[in-house]
């Protein structure tokens, strides 16, 4: 599971108010490098809940990876394709797309309901008694 996906996931169980963001408890994670696509990342930026993304990286023990405040589109487009490792663009790319959570748990912030992540795949299915009326 990439952190881009984590940024979208919400608990829909009975009792959840927003069910978002899910707290991340990571047992195993890995990095899979990929070529960054600046246009892609710029397009992604407006969708991202920045505090949730930052919190996720902190759960992984990477508090230095992302700044507290989101970069602007102007910043990202200025860096462009020539961006180096320390640039806002490369950091965003690493956080959103290169980090893969292999084993862990997603925890609903409202109900503490746990959703497992196993072999990189979250299972968000609810039991019958958790489904909202």
């Amino acid at each position, binding site marked *: 599971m990439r952190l881009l996906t984590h940024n979208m996931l*919400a608990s829909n169980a009975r009792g959840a108010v927003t*069910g978002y963001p899910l707290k991340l408890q990571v047992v195993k994670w890995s990095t899979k490098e990929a070529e960054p*696509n600046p246009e*892609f990342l710029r397009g992604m930026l407006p969708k991202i809940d920045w505090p949730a993304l930052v919190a996720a990286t902190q759960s992984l023990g990477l508090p230095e990876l992302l700044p507290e405040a989101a970069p602007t589109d102007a910043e990202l487009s200025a860096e462009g394709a020539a961006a180096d490792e320390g640039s806002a663009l490369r950091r965003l790319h690493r956080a959103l797309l290169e980090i893969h959570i292999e084993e862990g748990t997603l925890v609903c912030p409202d109900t503490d309901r746990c959703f497992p992540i196993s072999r990189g795949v979250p299972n968000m299915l609810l039991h019958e008694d958790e489904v909202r009326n």
Partner: protein
Amino acid sequence: MLGAQETVSTEGNNCSASVQSTPDIEKKYVHRVYDAIAPHFSSTRFAKWPKVAGFLNSLRLGSVILDAGCGNGKYLGFNPDCLFIGCDISPPLIEICAGRGHEVLVADAVNLPYRDNFGDAAISIAVLHHLSTDARRRKAIEELIRVVRKGGLVLITVWAVEQEDKSLLNKWTPLCEKYNEEWVDPSSPPVRNQSTTVLESISETDEDTGAVRQRNDNLKRSNDGLDDNADVTCSNSSNIDEHHKTQQEYFVPWHLPFHRAEISGASAAALENGFAKRDDRKGTVVYNRYYHVFVEGELQRLVAGINNAVVVDQFYDKSNWCIVLEKL
């Protein structure tokens, strides 16, 4: 997310069932079947349907595309300029997707675990016809709309009653609509009279029927034609109107070759408790999949009550009804 709804009653009254509780007919004749047949099913799912391909290729660079009910992930990654996130209710099918490197999760299309407005587009390809009530089908459409951004597009395709090959419907087992209300009740069978005849085998009906039929040499359609008892499942109705209503509820068989069934392991138990049958002539374990096939206009009718989306395209293609919605 929803307004208050009643939970399922012990009488199994369809009207009071919670939309999000999975009816028994779907657990038995959709979820369990796909779990058992996943690798074989996946091996027959390779042809990319041109209309879906066209839709995906029309989306702008960097779009996040949500595939709800992604199956074996046939369309995930199809447009390399977009990012696909797939979900399906079947863990074995999702495992196949994950094995191919796709970004996927196990989830229920009737209750997507996604926050609002994230996707640029969503697709639901041959999924809604596995949902057994109008309310659930509508809810699944509402979910697709909810999870895309304003201006985002949703493509839905479903099997049509109006099949290009009309003889196919004769090969499927029609389910009695009178028993609609019992489908949420685990103890009731969906078919009043268990036919004593063997289900007619059919070649696999895929969106791209030509390619799949050539592959399934051993599963050619039988020429036996209709059973004498073919209409026994609905013939006891005393209501004349039943005969004029279009039949939309069916079991459609899936033939799992014996060697595949052994690998799956689930088939031994399924045969033992009568959930699947052996077809020794074809060397397969036969499972039934539940379908509610759609009539012309039905998708439009479902969408009519949804006030934050409009229809931007609608068409019939290769025995499927299709619709494209735009979120307002």
